[in-house]
C-alpha cells in the first residue's frame, strides 16, 4: 500500500530543477509532502487535498492528479538547503497513513 516514488535518488547542481513523482496503487484523497534532512526528523512541506490542486511556496511546488493517483513535487532553481530525503504520504479512507518510498536529493555547488 506504500506509494512508490521516483527517482530513488537524484543529484543536482545548484540552480538546477528537479521533479519527484509519487504514485499509488490505491486512490489518493490527499497527498502530503515532507522533507527529512540527514539526522533530523521529517518536516512538513505541504498538503494537497483535491485532484488538480497545485500548491507552492518559495521555489517548491506540487501538483496532484487524482485520476492518475499521482502527485509530483517540483523544485526550481535548487539551493544547497534543499538536500535531503523527500517523502510523499497519504491516508486512504479506512486505512493508516503511509509514507512513500522516499527520494534522496543532493544539491552540490
Amino acid at each position: 500500500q506504500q506509494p512508490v516514488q521516483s527517482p530513488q535518488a537524484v543529484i543536482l547542481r545548484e540552480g538546477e530543477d528537479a521533479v519527484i513523482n509519487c504514485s499509488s496503487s490505491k486512490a489518493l484523497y490527499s497527498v502530503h509532502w515532507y522533507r527529512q534532512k540527514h539526522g533530523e526528523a521529517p518536516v512538513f512541506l505541504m498538503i494537497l487535498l483535491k485532484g488538480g490542486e497545485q500548491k507552492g511556496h518559495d521555489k517548491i511546488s506540487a501538483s496532484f492528479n487524482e485520476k492518475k493517483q499521482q502527485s509530483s513535487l517540483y523544485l526550481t532553481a535548487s539551493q544547497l538547503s534543499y538536500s535531503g530525503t523527500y517523502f510523499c504520504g497519504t491516508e486512504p479512507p479506512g486505512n493508516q497513513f503511509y509514507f512513500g518510498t522516499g527520494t534522496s536529493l543532493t544539491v552540490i555547488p
Partner: protein
Amino acid sequence: DTAVSQTPKYLVTQMGNDKSIKCEQNLGHDTMYWYKQDSKKFLKIMFSYNNKELIINETVPNRFSPKSPDKAHLNLHINSLELGDSAVYFCASSLQSGVETQYFGPGTRLLVL
C-alpha cells in the same frame, strides 16, 4: 517549547531486554503516531492513536505495544528486543488523522546488540 518530544534520544541495549520510549506533545492534537525508520530510510507506520482508537499496522510484531495514559502522551513499549529492532523510532502528532500536518519528534535511535 518543544512541540513533540521523545525520550530517550539514544538507546543502546542487549537482545532480549524490554525497553520503553516516551513521547509527549503539547500541541493539543488528537492523533499520535509511531513510525519506524530503518537503515534504508523507509518510514513505516507502526501505530496511530486517535481519540482512544488504536490502529495497529498488522505487520508490527506484538512485542511492540503503545500505551497512552492521556491525549498528550503515547509511549512505546518493546518486549524481548531483537537485532532487527535497531532503527530510529519517530513519534508524531496531528490535529486529526489524514488531512492534517504531522509534527514529528526528534527521534529515538535504538541499537540492539
